[in-house]
C-alpha cells in the first residue's frame, strides 16, 4: 500500500509525524509533510490509517497497489 500527501493542503500540523514517524516526517523550511516511506508494509496499515485520519487538513490519502 502507498500513502501520498497533497502538500498544497498540508499546513504543517505534524500530527502524521507524531503518530507514525516511520512513514511521515516534516521539512525544516515550512514544517510540511515529507513522506519518508510512501510504500509501507501491510503490518503498518493501522498506524498509517490512524495518522491519515488525524490530519486536520485532510491532506493524506492511502492507495492500494
Amino acid at each position, binding site marked *: 500500500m502507498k500513502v501520498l500527501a497533497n502538500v498544497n493542503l498540508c*499546513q*504543517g*500540523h*505534524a*500530527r502524521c*509525524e*507524531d*503518530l507514525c514517524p516511520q512513514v511521515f516526517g*516534516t*521539512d*525544516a*523550511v*515550512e*514544517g510540511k509533510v515529507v513522506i519518508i516511506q510512501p510504500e509501507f508494509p501491510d503490518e503498518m496499515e493501522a498506524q498509517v490509517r*490512524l495518522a491519515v*485520519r*488525524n*490530519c*486536520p*487538513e485532510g491532506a493524506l490519502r492511502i492507495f492500494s497497489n
Partner: protein
Amino acid sequence: MELRFQPSPPDHVPPELMVDFDFFKVPPGVADPSEIWTSLIRKGVPKIFYTPHNGGHWVFTEYADITDGFRNYSIFSNHQTPVPPIEPYPVMQPQGVDPPAHKVFRSLLAPMFTPIAVREMTQEIQRRAIKLIDAIADKGECDFVEDFADVFPTSMFLYLFGMPESRLGDFRQLSQTFFRSTDPDVRAKNITDIYAELDALFRERQQNPGSDLASAIVTARNEAGEQHDWQDILNAGFLLFVAGLDTVTNTITLVWRYLAANPEARQFFVDNFDDPVAFQNGTEELLRINSVANIFRRVAEDCEYQGVKLRRNDRIVLSGVLANRDPKVFVDPETIDLDREVNVHTAFGVGPHRCVGSHLAKREIIVALQEWLRRIPVFQLDPNKSQGNVLTGSTMGFSTLNLSWER
C-alpha cells in the same frame, strides 16, 4: 479618519437569525469558560447566527463552517478583523495579511517554529520550566497563574528573542497590562511601550545580529534584496509577543485546573512518561477540550454563505470550543478521552494561518506537564482559598488558580 472596515447596520440579518449573545460577558453561574459557548448550543441556536453585541457579528457553530472560516480567506479575510471593531488596528505580520502577501512573513517565521526547530529548543524549554517549578515545589501551594502559567511563556519569549532573564519582570508587566487592562489611556501607553521595546531591540540586533528570532527578522531580505519595511518588522515582533503569551498562559491554567480535580488524568500522564505518543495524544485531548481562543474574520465581499446573506465587513467569530465539541466530528465530544483515537481539533486553527508557533506551544505544555508531575505528582484546588474569576474575550481562562499539595 476614514473608516473602511466598519460593519454596516445589520439590515440584511433576518430576525430568525438574530440571537442575544455577548461572549465578552460571563453569565451568572458559569464556572468554566467553555460553558459560555456550550450553553448556547443547549439553548438551540441556528447553526449560523448574528448577535448585535460587540459591534455586531456572526457566530458559526459547527466544525465544518468554523474550519471554512479559518481556511477560506477569499471570503473570510484575516485583515482588519477585531471584535468589537477598532480602527486603525495594527496589521500584525503575517497574521493580519491574507494570502498571497501573507507568505512573505510566514516564510520568514515558519523555519524557526518547525518541529525540527522546536526539538532543538527542548533542553532550554526544560531548563526554564524546571527553574520555575523548583522555586515553588517546596511551598506546598501556589497561585498557578501568577507563579507559573504567566511567567513560563514570557520566559520563553525572552529566550526566542535572545534577551536576558533579568528582563522578565519588565516583560511580564507589559504583557499583563496588554491582556488585563481595560483603561484606554493605559492600553494606548502600553502598546507604545511594547513597540518602543521592540524598536530598541531590532535596532540593536541590526547592529549586532545573533542567532535569535529578532536578528533573523531584522536581517531578512525581501525579493528586491532589501530589508523589510520597518513597521512590518515591528508588527512581526508585536505578533510574536502577544500571540504566544496569553494563549499558553490560559491553556495551561485550564489544563492544570482539570488535572487538580482529576487524579486519574494525572495518573495517565505519569504512567506515560516513557510513551511520547500516548503522552502527546493525552495533551492533544486536553487542548481540544480547553480551546481558549475565539478567532475573528471579516467578510471580504457581499456574498451568500450556506444560504445566509453576508455583507462586506461583517465580522465572524470562530469559537474553538464549538468546533471541538461538534458531535458530527468528535465521538462523544463532552467526554475527555486521553486515548482519543481521532482528534482533528482546531485549538491552533487550520488553513494557511494555522498558529505558526503551535509546535513550540505544544512542547511548552508537554515539558511543563512532565516536569511538574515529576516533582508534584499529586495536587488539588486549594480548599482554603477562593478560586479566580472566569476570563472571557478573544482569549478565555481564569484570573487565579490556587493549588495546594503535600510538601
